[in-house]
């Protein structure tokens, strides 16, 4: 039997452009597991295609993100778009495993020929977003998906990164969120382009809407002049029915239009690439230098010397850094 990514199937850029699902799926597995092997392909895809429009969807677990994504995507497909969904769930720190359960809510779109859904685990990237996610966007864009949704949980560094990656970011919240609202204040409040107040069938919805409105008003007073600014709207939805979905899709389209009119200033594409380049460098420094270093006798020797108080971690670090500069040559 196979492990899919160990299968040395050679994938060409032409195959990806042709858009066959099996090829796309295999390319993403290579991106996740055999990074260096796939860089030549990514180079070619990147230079020969344009990145798709990216919608980021974030918010606490259980707030209805996956259910909403299915509804948004249904609308887009009806308009004739090919759409891809990247659904990200956290990797367990203890086991390294992950439970990827977003498809449960995507039954309505899961057999649509114009929809490609891929579940991915975060795989514990300390510096933020797993670089494999951007690379997956490159592949899906090249394969002809003009709109891509990235669903991600919570309010950690990953999500802040998703925001810097996405053209439009939806922050999903629910009436019972309570404490989570505090968390929103810290990070995501400034980051959302559209707030979705889902589960509007909940009795507390009006109270929650007021709280959100107040918080947004505070955020909206700073910064750019009114005419250049996107006023962050709140859209109420019941994702389990169609309620509010048409309005949400309309609001998303308006934001996309707003970005187009504003040109490149808003999204700052330089920042996305800058982030990705840093992630790629971190990744390859770890692979080429830090991982082998950890296994080396020199490293073990230093640890012993630290234990024996012949040196200290700070001096050891300086020594290793000097050595590192040499290696980079």
């Amino acid at each position, binding site marked *: 039997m196979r492990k899919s990514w160990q299968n040395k199937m050679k994938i060409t850029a032409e195959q990806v452009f042709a858009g066959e699902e*099996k090829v796309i*799926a295999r390319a993403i597995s290579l991106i996740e597991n055999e990074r260096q092997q796939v860089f030549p392909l990514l180079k070619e895809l990147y230079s020969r295609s344009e990145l798709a429009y990216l919608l980021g969807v974030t918010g606490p677990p259980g707030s209805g993100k996956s259910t909403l994504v299915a509804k948004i995507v249904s609308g887009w497909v009806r308009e004739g778009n090919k759409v891809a969904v990247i659904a990200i769930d956290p990797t367990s720190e203890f086991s390294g*495993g*992950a*439970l*990827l359960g977003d498809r449960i809510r995507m039954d309505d779109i899961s057999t649509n020929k114009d929809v490609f859904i891929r579940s991915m685990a975060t795989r514990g990237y300390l510096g933020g977003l797993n670089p494999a996610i951007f690379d997956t966007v490159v592949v899906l864009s090249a394969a002809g998906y003009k709109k891509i949704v990235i669903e991600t949980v919570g309010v950690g560094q990953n999500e802040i990164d998703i925001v810097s990656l996405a053209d439009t970011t939806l922050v999903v919240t629910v009436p019972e969120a309570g404490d989570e609202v505090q968390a929103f204040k810290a990070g995501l409040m400034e980051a959302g382009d559209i707030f979705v107040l889902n589960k509007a069938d909940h009795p507390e919805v009006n109270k929650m809407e007021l709280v959100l409105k107040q918080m947004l008003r505070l955020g909206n007073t700073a910064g750019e002049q009114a005419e250049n600014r996107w006023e962050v709207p709140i859209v109420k939805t019941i994702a389990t029915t169609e309620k509010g979905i048409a309005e949400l899709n309309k609001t998303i389209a308006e934001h996309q239009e707003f970005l187009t009119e504003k040109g490149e200033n808003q999204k700052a594409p330089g920042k996305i690439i800058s982030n990705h380049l840093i992630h790629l460098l971190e990744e390859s420094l770890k692979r080429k230098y830090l991982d082998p270093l950890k296994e080396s006798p020199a490293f073990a020797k230093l640890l012993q010397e630290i234990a024996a108080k012949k040196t200290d971690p700070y001096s050891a670090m300086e020594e290793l850094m000097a050595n590192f500069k040499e290696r980079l040559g």
Partner: protein
Amino acid sequence: MTGKNIKVLIAKPGLDGHDRGAKVIARGLKEAGMEVVYTGLRQTPAQIVRAALQEDVDVIGLSILSGAHQELFPVIMDELEEAGLEDILVLAGGTIPDSDHQELKEIGIKEIFKPGTPIKEIVEFIEKELAE
């Protein structure tokens, strides 16, 4: 246990309405270090095959309680082959009488686990099969 970099689809074909067993397996495999895609109740063969294709899984675990395995499993296996996915390791679990095991193995289902099988046994089976 080291299920590192193994991706599994746990799917529930058939019309029965509860998935406790499937969830226990999904969680157990996750704790063994695998990445487990769980798709929920009442999946049609087409949904299962499409998910396996897009997710590029190494293993499919079919959980069934409804007794419709003889009807559904051959369809799933045929559609997998049609999609060029015949190299995926397919396992089954749930309420499947012993007398049906041979027939299911003949259509390509590698192993059938009875309810209550320790997760460790399933993990070891998967690891052994994928190492070959």
